[in-house]
């Protein structure tokens, strides 16, 4: 009889230990991971800590998560602000735990305790996560494998589940070997384009002033010194092979735009701003000869030499300047449809 009782007790204990393992001792969390921001020895800067966990037993009793670091890690005393944004994509489905989380880091015990969970809302099917920002954890000064533990606790601090070891690997012979210094050079650049190579001035007669439709010059540069653009007329006039004796000559190059009058011969250049730059410094300014704001003035050409017409004293992603030509003729200018000139447009970075 006594023997039977003893067997029964042993059998019952065995059965219970199989059926109710949790009752025997604290079990492991269902899923756990930690990720340090830095793996280099002695690293502090940028060394945040991501903790993910899936609860196991009595999730609605969990009020705290405790992360314990092994000897070698240095934990700064403090109350780091727990972050719940910026989770990585892996592991998938990291969810912000319910509650208003706070953390207490203790140097002596090398622990970080996160509390403030809304216990009744917790479950054991969701993968929760939080981040302890950098500034609290300093990695060991020696490379190797280090085992952390992560545990779920009641409000009173009793362990419910604990996972240990959670391994992290610290490496390097000297500091910052886990980082790559990236350096880059940006080459100075200067871009220039013309939207077309020719520009037709509509047919003019002694009663009108005519203006071409324009060609768009676009300049971009990363030089903080800016740039200057120049124009040069090959003839200082619109010349005709049919009527070489009556060119449509340019006006006076004197720092002031010419006023064109129907019936009086004149030919000039009219630059104006098109689409504004979106990333630029300094300002776009026109030389006084070419500061034209109406439909009856034009800047004269500097004979057959270069003259600057627009400049910027800073960098720009794209300055658009519309280049137009304007003319008027006396009634003695010979009729022909071959009046032609060639303008050379040059843009150069400032020195």
């Amino acid at each position, binding site marked *: 009889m006594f023997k039977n009782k003893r067997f029964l007790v042993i059998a019952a204990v065995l059965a219970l230990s199989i059926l109710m393992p949790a009752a025997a001792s604290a079990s492991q969390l269902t899923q756990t991971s930690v990720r340090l921001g830095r793996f280099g020895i002695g690293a502090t800067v940028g060394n945040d800590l991501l903790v993910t966990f899936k609860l196991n037993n009595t999730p609605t009793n969990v009020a705290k998560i405790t992360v314990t670091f092994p000897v070698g890690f240095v934990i700064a005393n403090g109350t780091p602000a727990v972050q719940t944004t910026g989770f990585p994509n892996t592991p998938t489905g990291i969810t912000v735990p319910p509650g208003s989380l706070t953390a207490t880091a203790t140097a002596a015990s090398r622990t970080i305790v996160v509390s403030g969970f809304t216990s009744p809302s917790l479950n054991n099917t969701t993968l929760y996560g939080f981040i302890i920002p950098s500034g609290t954890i300093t990695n060991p000064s020696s490379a190797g494998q280090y085992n952390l533990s992560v545990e779920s606790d009641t409000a009173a601090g009793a362990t419910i589940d604990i996972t240990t070891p959670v391994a992290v690997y610290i490496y390097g012979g000297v500091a910052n070997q886990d980082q790559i210094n990236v350096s880059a050079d940006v080459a*100075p650049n200067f871009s*220039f384009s013309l939207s077309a190579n*020719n520009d*037709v001035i509509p047919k003019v007669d002694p009663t009108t002033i005519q203006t*071409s439709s324009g060609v768009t010059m676009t300049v971009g540069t990363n030089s903080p010194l800016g740039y200057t653009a120049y124009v040069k007329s090959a003839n200082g006039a619109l010349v005709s092979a049919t009527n070489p004796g009556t060119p449509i000559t340019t006006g006076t190059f004197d720092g002031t735009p010419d006023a064109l009058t129907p019936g009086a011969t004149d030919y000039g250049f009219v630059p104006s701003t098109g689409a504004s730059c979106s990333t630029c410094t300094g300002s776009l300014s026109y030389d006084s000869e070419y500061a034209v704001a109406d439909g009856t003035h034009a800047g004269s050409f500097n004979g057959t030499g270069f003259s600057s017409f627009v400049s910027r004293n800073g960098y720009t992603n794209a300055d658009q300047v519309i280049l137009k030509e304007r003319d008027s003729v006396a009634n003695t200018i010979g009729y022909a449809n071959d009046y032609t000139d060639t303008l050379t447009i040059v843009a150069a970075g400032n020195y």
Partner: protein
Amino acid sequence: MLYYSEMRHIRRVLTGIVVAVVGLSAVVPMSASAAPGFNVITSPLPIKINTAPGQTVQTDLRIKNQGTQPEAIKVGLMKFAASGDNGQPNLYDLSKQDQFSSWVHFSPEVFTADPNIWYTVTMTIDVPPTASLGYYMAVTFSPADASTTTGAANLNGSVATLVLLNVVTPDENRALSLVSFETDHELYEYLPVNFKIKIHNSGNIYVSPAGNIFIQRGSKVVDTVDFNDAGGSVLPQSNRVYTASWTNGFPLYVEKLVNGKPVPDNHDIPKETLKWDFTQVSKFRFGEYSAKLLAVYDNGTQDVPLEATVSFWVVPWKMLLLLLAIILLVGFGLFSALRSTGKKVKSGLQKRRHDAKAK
């Protein structure tokens, strides 16, 4: 089978079409966008070369055709000089007196640039033993096949890269002097404060000064502004005006942006708007400040300092007036309320006395 009369009719119609087409082509202007224009990007920007007489120096110039079709490009040479005092070059065609043109060679001189490929042109300068001091060149990249359209203004685009060649000789004289250091106003409501620094080069070679402007309130330095961190040069026997701005303040006038783009006024100068960045509130500026310029240049043997100081005031007078108005209003309100209460108390006392007498 066509009859003779029908054939004559068809011939007349065809002739009419041909005449019409020819006539139209002569009368109707060509479209301005008939041919795509020159579209390139070059690097680097102004190149500064130091060498000695009798030496050969080389530098690489890079260019990329940003158009969609291959472009034949020719490399040319011009010269430049200072234009005004803002660091803008004035370009000139070479004349027979410009002997340095025979020292300079390009490889290649003409080439076809396929779209979106960087090409390197090597500029070789065989400096003769007789050369000395500065030579200011502009290397141009322009279309090699510039076509001309009759009856239109033809536009040939070019990009110029400036090359400042210094042939160092014993008679080199590097000498700068500070002409003026000033602010554009004496009184500012808010930052930025804009500085103008005018420097004269009385030497015979270009020089690039650099340094800092120390902003002081009393004897305490409150901020530092870089001077000529872009490395702009002063050409010999010319002036150059540099600008710098102190922008580290709260609130701050900044360029007005609409859809991310600056809004120009009638003179193409960007409009300004006041930016209130309350994270910068500790940089609220008020009172008299002085700005001390400390620039240096290398005279060949040592760094030579250029120093000057200018004072200015920052007084947010609109804010002060508003504050004063609020204080006056509150004071007037308090005064009125006290006066009214006093009157009531006084009349109450008088009434009591009157009632007491009546009893």
